[in-house]
């Protein structure tokens, strides 16, 4: 590998370039599109030379959409707020519930622990609609329909198994002796959990939390079925730009750009944890 012929080096460079182009071009193009009006977007042939406009972003941020049939109110910013709230709250709840459980599964081989752990993980792989469709009725009875509480509960279906399994792997990697040493030094199990297990599994918890956040943010079908207009996140809200009086392509593009910005920013900021979470997450749990 160290000794590469010039030809091979060139071929590798070419292959990498193609890969980068394939994966980056759509993002680049949508980014450009978000600064265009419908008119320049619809121009044939497509061109990268245009006068950029911020009108799409302005429309999204002010919530006023100009269409052929007058001004429409759009709730994009509140959708964005919903996405942030739902994702953050779901991950927080998942961490509070999942980390202690992961700890129990990692440290205590109790009766049926493997079965329970497997059942929990299998939720990760169950078809979401299977649960969602009857759930609408139960939520109705319980008064949970159209509540953040209900949505956050259902989001546990995505976040909890993920956190449980990744964090469990990290806990298992902590030497039991280290925890024993702390117990023997005279500290309760809870102090040990708080002062030893949690800090040592910290990177894993961060990685799992980040991953869960991304999955919650990207979710479409739960919100599609369960969320009403004022609770719905951007993934569903983006459909609102398809209005009866025309499709606002520029605003769709701007909405996509705005809606991926938080996850992108978070992911880039914490990319170390992200890579760790993605790679180890799969192998560990």
């Amino acid at each position: 590998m160290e000794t590469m012929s010039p030809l091979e080096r060139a071929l590798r460079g070419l292959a990498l370039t193609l890969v980068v182009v394939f994966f980056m071009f759509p993002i680049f193009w949508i980014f450009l599109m978000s600064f265009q009006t419908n008119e320049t977007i619809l121009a044939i042939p497509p061109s990268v030379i245009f006068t950029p406009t911020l009108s799409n972003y302005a429309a999204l941020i002010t919530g006023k959409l100009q269409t052929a049939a007058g001004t429409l109110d759009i709730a994009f910013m509140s959708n964005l707020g919903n996405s942030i709230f739902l994702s953050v709250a779901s991950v927080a709840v998942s961490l509070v519930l999942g980390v202690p459980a992961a700890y129990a599964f990692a440290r205590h081989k109790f009766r049926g622990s493997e079965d329970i752990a497997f059942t929990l993980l299998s939720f990760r792989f169950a078809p979401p609609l299977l649960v969602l469709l009857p759930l609408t009725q139960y939520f109705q009875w319980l008064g949970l329909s159209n509540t953040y509480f209900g949505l956050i509960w259902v989001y546990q279906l995505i976040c909890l198994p993920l956190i449980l399994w990744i964090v469990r792997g990290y806990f298992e990697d902590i030497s039991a002796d280290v925890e024993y040493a702390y117990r023997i030094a005279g500290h309760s199990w809870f102090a040990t959990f708080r002062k030893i297990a949690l800090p040592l599994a910290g990177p894993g918890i961060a990685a799992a939390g980040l991953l869960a956040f991304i999955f919650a943010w990207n979710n479409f079908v739960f919100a599609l079925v369960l969320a009403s207009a004022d609770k719905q996140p951007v993934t569903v809200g983006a459909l609102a730009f398809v209005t009866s009086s025309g499709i606002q392509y520029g605003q769709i593009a701007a909405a996509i750009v705005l809606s991926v910005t938080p996850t992108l920013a978070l992911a880039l900021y914490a990319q170390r944890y992200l890579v760790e979470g993605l790679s180890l997450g799969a192998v560990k749990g």
Partner: protein
Amino acid sequence: MYEKEKDLISAFLRGEVDRRGMLKGLGAAGLTAGTAGTLFNMMSTRALAADFDWKAHSGKKLKLLLNKHPYADAMIANLQAFKDLTGIEVTYDVFPEDVYFDKVTAALSSGSAEYDAFMTGAYMTWTYGPAGWIADLNEWIKDPTKTNPNYNWDDFLAGVKNSCAWNGQPGGALGSEDAKQWCIPWAFEQNNITYNREMFDKAGVELPKNLDDMIAVAAKLQKDIGGIYGIGVRGSRSWATIHPGFLSGYANFNQKDLNVGADGKLSAAMNTAESKAYHAKFVQMIQESGPKDWSTYTWYQVGTDLGAGASAMIFDADCLGYFMNGGDNKMAGKLGYAAFAANPEATASTPNIWIWSLAMSNFSKDKDATWYFLQWASGPEHALFGATKMDFVDPVRQSIWKDEIFREKLNKSYPGYVEMFDASAAGASIKFTPQPLFFDVTTEWAATLQKMVAKQVPVDEGLDQLAESINRQLQEAGLG
């Protein structure tokens, strides 16, 4: 302030002055249109309040489920008038049409009491009604203590009104004696032609007179104009593909979706020789002159393309064409409208209609209050407000269509629209057989059309398969 003006409006509302006279008077008084509107609403509110206890449910709260649509926008714009009139607090959820009906199904199937009233199409009530999700509105319409005297139920176009009434029997005639009024029509769309006048002039073609003609005209337009396609029709895998132009032309050949047997049993009727011939032509038209990605086309794409000048004409809802002739559409002001009879032997156009309606949830906690909203929203005052001030096109009340200002507004900017309406209104009705498997039948029908257009299956074979499959499903459901 404005006392003279208020008198004028009151006189209009009492019927002493006609509308034109009133507006002239107001204009002479130097009022802007906006102020006039506000005044007008204020006075209508007063007039309504005079004869009926609109405040009976004051302080109550209602919630609506609305589709993102100009009609909903018009209603929302006028909602304050309702609140002022009744003292009822109204909130609403608005969803884009892509997910709107799924949301309705989700809310109603779970027995949600969250929404009191919602927008719907007449087809949907064929599911909602038998499922017990919506209330029969006759109970309120026919009760003079609950309905204000100005409501004027007879003012509704009979065909449209009846299309919203069904007795719940699969295959039962719409608007029969024992029919239940599942919803109240709000506005309805006739499916006819909207065309680009510039392009037609440029290519030197006339309006198509029948389906064969349409195929030829579309092809010529596509060829002569260049960079565009000839005709826009919907094509997504959904009931929405069947019900506009496609079914309107189909009905013009006296073809039906289902046969109703003497025993009340249903069976597929789309594999007749005439039907096959019609399908073959329609498919040919799409293949030759339709949009390239026709199979993804919904209302939006059909409209956007026409507005952007990417297509020369559409065979779709009239109001879709209407919307494309305004706003910042590239082709605004260049569109024309015409009725279309696909069958050369037919005397007139027989459009299938889509009716945006209002229905009352059976799970509503206060149906009387909900009815207050429904009768206001479908009442003559709001209809006039919508038709003249907003884009509440295609009203369902005869009085509006007779309104000179409304007709004039249309004639000025929407050439042929009124003629188109007049030419086909008589034959306009729902051409589907009401039955609970409506969506199964139409979705599969659309899927079959897609296969035919993609040449995955020959037309006659595809229709035989479709009929067979539909018969099987009808039997499975105990209907066939």
